[in-house]
């Protein structure tokens, strides 16, 4: 087939995006970071190095609220770093939780943030504390490498390995994938961990090579009927096929992804295309080949067109199947049947197949902090001390206190109550299904508020929900401060994507189980207009819905928005 012109690994370096040269010349991500960390005159590191530290899970940010004030005062921006942990499958021991909690209070802003990729983020780490911070995480048996950057990111998986044998196997697969696809550079150990330089191989990165991937690469594993991970939203999705309680293999989805740029139709969210089925024993090989296909064919000329979803969109799923068959030595098998019910979490106590109990705790926007009357951080610290077991993070920014013997439940309930953090029965289904990215004041990309704003907006929408008698109806609502999609907004029944301070695009009509994108309903509207829209739609939904019909399906059926069947149509 004839390929559209694209710059790939095969093209001359100088014809590629400047980041390719930067990676190539960075001596496997070392850059001048050592020097920058030692420079006491600035809280920043060199601009080029900020691209490299991402590969180590570290983003340089600044407090945007004081940026102008400090500029006038002839002070540099208040630079600080976001540090993201690599936590495949989202599982940590309660001992690790305690270590991260202590680290947040010692060298970050005193809070933990649970992310949509099932891991921890620290904010407000100052340059002088950066190494100590990362080393503290490593001392707890975790690391931060490849939590960002043009590499395979944290591999996510349907939450809680203790739920069933299949969940355990899926989590273990996520962890094996994470390890297998790790960057191997000694730069991380030398610069961040201050370990002695190793004897460097000629090619320190046998999988990635010196220019790594064209862009980030994300893998998710879902265990049906739960689609908490939004398995269609990732570069590579695996849907576990469970027979007699065992995972026999995985359906393979390729080319999903969320990010886009407002008003640029060539950019769009895309759901993964079903490419076939692989046996459980082949899952590592299939993942590696998929990533290397993207390494070799991904567009390295335009970072806005570099994600695997555009490679698949441009070259086609059939092309991918052929390429995979060549590399794997045999074709993928035909996809098997599966069924998803919901992309949300199941809150409260659930009994696992081995008789242990699991409590899914709603954490608004994933922010673990103490607030007046609601001492979440302290409470979880006490629970982690009491319960020597596992905390499982969900990809909806929630937390599962996992593997609790029945006898311990009352004491955990008491602590949840004592700290004012138990799931509130009066929470609406809308609030339980709410999710927001971090945005202001630290994220450099944010165009509008998100995490700090969504709770109060939900308060107002809740009035409409209650008035319509929909308080028990699960409705997903997601907000992001920019169109890049950290909270997977294009898979929410109601999505608000920032355009400018106080202004959002309103998208409606995604399915409740994550297999259909939403569509633009209103552009660039403020809170009053958002509430006006929902004030007319929610009562209509309450009155006109069919049995079991979700809000997302209703607005499509009622032709409030069109059914978004292909990502390429999203901005057309």
């Amino acid at each position, binding site marked *: 087939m004839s390929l559209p012109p694209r710059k790939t690994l095969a093209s001359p370096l100088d014809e590629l995006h400047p980041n390719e040269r930067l990676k190539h010349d960075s001596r496997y991500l070392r850059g001048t970071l050592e020097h920058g960390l030692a420079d*006491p*005159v*600035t*809280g920043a590191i060199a601009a080029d190095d900020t691209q490299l530290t991402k590969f180590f899970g570290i983003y340089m940010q600044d407090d945007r609220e*004081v940026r102008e*004030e*400090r*500029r*006038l*005062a*002839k*002070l*540099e921006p*208040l630079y600080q770093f976001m540090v993201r942990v690599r936590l495949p499958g989202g599982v940590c021991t309660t001992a690790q939780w305690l270590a991260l909690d202590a680290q947040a209070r010692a060298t970050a802003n005193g809070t933990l943030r649970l992310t949509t990729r099932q891991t921890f983020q620290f904010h407000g780490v100052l340059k*002088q504390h950066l190494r100590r911070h990362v080393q503290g995480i490593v001392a707890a048996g975790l690391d931060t490498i490849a939590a960002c950057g043009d590499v395979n990111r944290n591999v996510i998986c349907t939450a809680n390995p203790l739920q069933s044998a299949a969940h355990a196997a899926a989590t273990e697969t996520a962890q094996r994938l994470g390890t297998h696809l790790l960057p191997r550079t000694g730069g991380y150990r030398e610069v961040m961990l201050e370990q002695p330089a190793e004897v460097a191989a000629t090619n320190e990165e046998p999988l990635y090579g010196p220019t790594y991937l064209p862009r980030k690469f994300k893998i998710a594993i879902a265990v049906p009927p739960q689609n908490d991970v939004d398995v269609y939203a990732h570069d590579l999705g695996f849907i576990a096929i469970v027979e007699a309680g065992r995972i026999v293999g995985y359906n393979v989805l390729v080319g999903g992804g969320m990010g886009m740029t407002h008003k640029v139709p060539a950019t769009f969210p895309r759901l993964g295309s079903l490419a076939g089925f692989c046996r459980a024993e082949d899952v590592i090989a299939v993942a590696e080949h998929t990533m290397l296909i993207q390494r070799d064919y991904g567009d390295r000329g335009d970072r806005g067109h570099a994600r695997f979803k555009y490679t698949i969109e441009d070259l086609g799923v059939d092309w991918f199947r052929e390429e995979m068959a060549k590399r794997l030595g045999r074709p993928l098998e035909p996809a098997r049947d599966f069924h998803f019910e919901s992309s949300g979490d199941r809150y409260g106590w659930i009994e696992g197949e081995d008789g242990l109990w699991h409590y899914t705790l709603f954490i608004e926007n994933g922010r673990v902090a103490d607030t007046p009357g609601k001492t979440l951080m302290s409470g979880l610290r006490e629970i982690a001390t009491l319960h020597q077991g596992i905390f499982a993070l969900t990809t909806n920014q929630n937390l599962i206190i996992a593997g609790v013997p029945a006898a311990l439940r009352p004491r955990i309930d008491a602590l949840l109550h004592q700290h004012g953090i138990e799931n509130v029965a009066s929470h609406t289904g809308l609030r339980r299904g709410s999710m927001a990215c971090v945005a202001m004041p630290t994220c450099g990309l944010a165009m509008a508020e998100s995490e700090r704003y969504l709770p109060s907006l939900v308060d107002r929408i809740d009035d409409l929900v209650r008035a319509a008698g929909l308080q028990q109806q699960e409705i997903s609502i997601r907000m992001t401060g920019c169109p890049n999609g950290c909270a997977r907004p294009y898979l929410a029944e109601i999505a608000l994507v920032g355009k400018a301070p106080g202004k959002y695009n309103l998208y409606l009509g995604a399915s409740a189980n994550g297999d259909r994108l939403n569509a633009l309903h209103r552009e660039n509207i403020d809170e009053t207009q958002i509430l006006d829209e929902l004030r007319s739609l929610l009562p209509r939904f309450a009155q006109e819905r069919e049995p079991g019909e979700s809000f997302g399906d209703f607005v499509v059926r009622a032709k409030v928005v069109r059914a978004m069947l292909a990502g390429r149509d999203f901005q057309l």
Partner: protein
Amino acid sequence: MGSPLQSIPDAGSSATALWASAPFDAALAGEVQHLVGRLDVGQKLWLSGYLAGSLASAAPVAKPAVAGAARPLITIAYGSHSGNGEQLAQRIGQAANARGLSFVVMDMLDCRKNHLQEAKYLLVVVSTHGEGEPPDHAKPLYELMHSRKAPKLDQLQYSVLALGDSSYAMFCETGRRFDAQFEALGARRLHDRVECDVDFQTAADQWVEAVVEAIARENPENAGVTSPSLALARPSATIATAHTRKNPFHAPLLVNQRLTGRNSTKDVRHIELSIEGSGMHYEPGDALGVVPRNQDAEVAAVLESLPFAPELPVEVGAQSATLRDALTHQLDIGLLSRPVVERYAEATGNDALRQLTLAGREADLQRYLHGRHLIDLLREHAPAGLEASDLVKLLRPLAPRLYSIASSLRASPDEVHLTVSHVTYESLGRERAGVVSGALAQLDGDVTAPVYVQRNPAFHLPSSSDAPLIMIGPGTGVAPFRAFLAEREATGARGRNWLFFGDRSFWSDFLYQSEWLEWRKRGLLERIDVAFSRDGAEKIYVQHRIQQRGRELYAWLESGAHIYVCGDAQSMAPDVERALLAVVREHGARSTEQAEEYLLQLQRERRYQKDVY
């Protein structure tokens, strides 16, 4: 602008005779005349100030400049941190010149044993610092005179003008000791020592006239041999700063920007004033005097506690004013000092206060003075029997505040920038602010500040633009270094530059951080080392950084670097000096004594300059 100009020789035909006797060969004289002819009045003013300044910073400044002249009759030696000592020394020179007496003006630092032995008349202007300490430049001479190497001075007649601040316990101590030691070494006192408080002008003027008159009477044969070159060079330095404390320029505010971040424990301001049209000129290193004015509320509080009408006329110095005006513009109504309490106790017959000022109760007095303003004294001890005229006599004059200028005229024409720490503190239940810093910090909108330039030739850039600079300026002491770097950038100076800065917090107190970073990026600032005392468990100050960078710092010194220190005189400057001594000892393999000599030699070469306060 009329009168000062008249003392500048006209470059036209009427000056031909003058040029004939000028110390230039004919070709050079022609070039200079041609050049001067192209200048307008303002440019001439500026140039005359510039030349005077560069003369003053070349060591030693000796006169007469006429080649082959005999040893001058009068030796004028000054030692002070501020420019006041030098300014007064120049005033003596003018007075001597007016009477045709030859003289030489020298910084005490350059005054060696042979100068003392050869001098006939020695006039000393010296200030006192801290707890009775001599200023840095006076120390070598002071130590010489108190050592076994001290010369016999039977041939010498002398007089001492002592500068001080009566709010310190050891008021004018250095002047007293010099006076006593000259006498002890056999010299004859020409005129009694005069001690000046912060408002030194009147007392100093009287002393200058008296001593010069006395010398003129003893030397009638010298009168009339005025050298034109003498009449030219010096007065022009004063002309360049035609605006004075008494005649300040009302400079419009351009910018009042807080420099410290929102979490800072300090309020440091960047103030920009316009001097457009003022004819004012300054060099990097010079200071800006700001004429003070007490806050209306503070004045009102004092007036309320007094039984006098605010509009009552009073005499302050030789001028009459209303009591309100005198308290607002002329008298210090802030922190109390020993003489004020003494005089108040006397005037009001207050025995309790008088007891407090007795010998042996120094600690009690200091405790009492701490944080107390005039208003507190008036409220605690009613002014029984006090007349308004007594009150204005017992108060000290309101002193102007000098700020190191933070800008370069070449980089920011028509502007002068200051770095002002706005100090507020609570004492006896009330919020207090520095008189001048408070007023500057509150400047807002379409207002002016009364200012004048105070030259500080002992703190100027090296004449060579290739000389490396090491600048040590923690806190607001960094101000002149912003001027130095701006100047070096504007003039394309190629010398390497190294800055040491320190303050409390990196995040909120790093004054002018983005400018240093920009200058570092452009290569102008080759090195910058910083110390922040409250960021870590250990308190780190600039002196620690100096020692840590000792090897390289010593190498810079050996390659001809000039060191400048600006800021706190109480602890920073001595700590920095100790660190520099340690660096020279360690990296120059010298004994302590040799290291001290090394630094002294740097001072004599004007390669180690301080502006500390």
